[in-house]
């Protein structure tokens, strides 16, 4: 095919996306500026051991090849953005397209505009996400390269200069961006070509392999995958548990084969030494996962039939003790296995809430589970945690469950309890928060609200409750993908997940926070920097509770008298400017005023 128009390259910062016709996403329009290019081409500043990114638009029509070259150890990854066709709204309107999923492409590979697979009528712009990776040992100073567009006889070159800073981004993240997920049955539906004709062990092997790819993509993006095996009904797929045998005093763990196949590489870190399909070679250290959902729940290994009786205690303590011993024998002493109870009484399988408990009368069950866990594992070197996803009762639970629960993942009500949270952290507990994820038609940088808030509050992590299921048809009838910033690669012939702009924006923000945190700690002025930056950052950290919270016990709160729900997506109300993160980026790059 012959090029029918003049080709050109346009560039922009990572936080502003455009539609397939070059129009900036309405939510990304800003009066502020954060240019990445000038007369001399693209110019980025980057700390070592991390990424700098930009968006690039190929403008033209016909076949083309895009490539990137860099001198020295600096590497460049190209990703072609998918234009998600948004599900129609209530009123008839023209189709809307938003960018998010990023398809890795080889430099110099043949592409077409309009993109035939994306099938956007009249497409004039193709967005690319450019990741520039600067290794920890890269020389400080400018690294030169170029981006090249070749189309027929035309050739467009854009110089690319990366100013490599002396700063090295720490391997350890100051905050943990947790990507939550439930079970593994969704994988088969997302990857039908992988599972065609598979059954038995082959099927479980394929599930484990793809799960590992999800762990990898999170790890490489300075995040973490959490994958909960147990369902609300007290059932759990066999890939998450060692096999039990017997009952009562004779109950014990019989077979670790499938469990070890699933978890061993995650617990010793070797899973992260290899790349997922389509992904560049690993650039992050291969280390054990920070933590994982242990298979323990109310119906495993103890039989809930015998809850409150001697038999439940015997089954629980014996089997959990064996579980702990297996970890000690294997030397899995880094990863934190957590006891987490996900069931909710509203679903009618159990009489108490394991997740987001609302009723104080349910507290006795938590205390009992905590007692059983301690009895089962004793003074073990395995760093067990008892996790509670705290909500309605969190203010009283911080006190009542001190010494029982030591890992708190707090919902939006955490906004009301700054002092209690600080005290809970001060006694050594792990405190995180949780929420949903902004949709792809919202401000591209909206999800960074959570990154900022966790660091500014001093909490260790933030769990986005579901990030691997971007909807029934994220490609051509997208519902906003609030539940998936990691996409299946199946459509593109990739037997694993592919990243998104949201995932990469989040990764880059974690890098920024790491730099600011490390520098502030080294200077002995962490709280000073937190406070000073917090004053100039448009994210509210704490709020006063509504009157009903002060007047009534949590049992009497509801989504009417609170004017909110525990599931509220905080980002929806943020109203953040598209470039709100830019001052934080400048600070991370050492460009902040030294006040």
């Amino acid at each position, binding site marked *: 095919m012959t090029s029918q128009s003049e080709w050109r390259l346009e560039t922009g910062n990572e936080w502003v996306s455009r539609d397939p016709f070059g129009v900036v996403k309405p939510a990304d329009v800003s009066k502020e500026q954060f240019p990445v290019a000038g007369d001399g081409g693209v110019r980025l500043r980057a700390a070592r051991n991390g990424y700098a990114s930009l968006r690039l638009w190929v403008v033209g029509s016909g076949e083309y090849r895009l490539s990137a070259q860099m001198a020295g150890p600096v590497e460049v990854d190209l990703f072609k953005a998918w234009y998600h066709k948004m599900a129609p709204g209530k009123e008839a309107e023209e189709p809307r397209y938003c960018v998010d999923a990023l398809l890795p492409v080889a430099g110099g590979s043949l592409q077409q505009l309009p993109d035939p697979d994306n099938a956007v009528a009249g497409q004039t712009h193709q967005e690319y996400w450019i990741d520039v990776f600067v290794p920890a040992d890269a020389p400080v100073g400018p690294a030169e390269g170029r981006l090249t567009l070749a189309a027929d006889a035309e050739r467009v070159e854009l110089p690319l200069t990366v100013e490599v800073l002396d700063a090295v981004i720490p391997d350890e993240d100051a905050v943990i961006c947790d990507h939550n997920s*439930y*079970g*593994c*049955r*969704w994988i088969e539906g997302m990857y039908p070509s992988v599972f065609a004709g598979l059954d038995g062990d082959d099927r479980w092997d394929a599930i484990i392999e793809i799960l590992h790819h999800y762990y990898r993509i999170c790890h490489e993006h300075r995040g973490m995958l959490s994958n909960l*095996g*147990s*369902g*609300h*009904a007290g*059932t*759990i*797929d066999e890939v998450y548990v060692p096999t039990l045998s017997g009952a009562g005093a004779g109950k014990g763990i019989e077979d670790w084969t499938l469990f070890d196949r699933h978890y061993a590489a995650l617990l010793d870190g070797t899973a992260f030494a290899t790349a997922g399909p389509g992904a560049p070679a690993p650039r992050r250290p291969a280390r054990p996962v920070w933590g994982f959902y242990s298979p323990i729940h109310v119906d495993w290994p103890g039989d*809930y*039939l015998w*809850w*409150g009786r001697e038999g439940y205690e015997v089954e629980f303590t014996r089997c959990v003790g064996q579980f702990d011993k297996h970890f000690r024998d294997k030397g899995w002493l880094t990863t934190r296995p957590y006891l987490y109870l996900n069931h*909710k*009484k*509203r*679903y*009618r*399988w*159990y*009489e*108490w809430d394991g997740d987001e408990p*609302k*009723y104080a*009368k349910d507290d006795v069950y938590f205390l009992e589970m905590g007692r059983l866990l301690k009895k089962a594992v004793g003074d073990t070197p395995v760093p067990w945690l008892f996790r509670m996803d705290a909500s309605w009762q969190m203010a009283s639970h911080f006190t009542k469950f001190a010494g029982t629960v030591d890992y708190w993942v707090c919902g939006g009500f955490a906004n009301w309890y700054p002092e209690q949270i600080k005290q809970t952290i001060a006694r050594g507990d792990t405190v995180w928060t949780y929420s949903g994820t902004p949709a792809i038609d919202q401000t591209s940088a909206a999800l960074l609200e959570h990154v900022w808030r966790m660091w500014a509050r001093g909490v260790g992590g933030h769990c986005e409750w579901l990030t691997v299921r971007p909807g029934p048809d994220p490609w051509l009838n997208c519902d906003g993908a609030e539940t998936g910033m990691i996409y299946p690669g199946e459509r593109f012939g990739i037997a694993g997940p592919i990243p998104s702009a949201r995932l990469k924006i989040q990764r880059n923000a974690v890098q920024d926070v790491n730099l600011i945190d490390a520098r502030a700690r080294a200077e002995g002025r962490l709280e000073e920097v937190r406070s000073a930056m917090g004053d100039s950052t448009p994210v509210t950290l704490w709020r006063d509770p509504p009157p009903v919270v002060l007047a009534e016990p949590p049992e009497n*709160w*509801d*989504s*009417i008298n609170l004017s909110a*729900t*525990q*599931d509220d997506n905080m980002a929806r109300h943020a109203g953040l400017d598209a470039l709100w993160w830019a001052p934080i980026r400048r600070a991370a790059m050492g460009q902040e005023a030294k006040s």
Partner: protein
Amino acid sequence: MTEATANADALLAELTRLGEIAAGILDGEEVKRIITERAMHYIANPKPEHRYLGGDYFDVDHELFGRTKRLMIRIARLSDAQVSTSAWVPVPGQAKVTVAVHNGVRHRYYDFGQESAETPREMQEAFGTGEIVRVAPESDRAVATVLAPVRDSLGEVVAVIELTAPLEGQAPAWS
């Protein structure tokens, strides 16, 4: 008779045996009081603009729930089939039912997160006649079901126990 029909008939017979036991030993006085009055009020009076309201207020009597759940577990384990059980109770003043307690994941009538449902025809029959009702597998749902009436101290049918089992296959932990 095809093999599938024979399997379904055998399963229905097995579920009927369990249903008779359930009808005989479950205490309607307890089952009907599992869901607290306040919770039932919000089930009966949902506010569509506040979709979490019913869940916010859902609560049960721990002891009554626990006893009924354990009895239903024991009944299900009398069979080698993968039997899921649900105790359905009427929503006061409405032609609807809601689950008070259940076990297992293969249910014919419960949709995840559902707060109430129009009373299915065959469940109406169980409530109305006080007899065990057998519901054969349908083409799109390879499960067999038996509905067993549960009576209170006045002899009124105040709950229906659903016993459902798949003709084949394992039930997923997450679907």
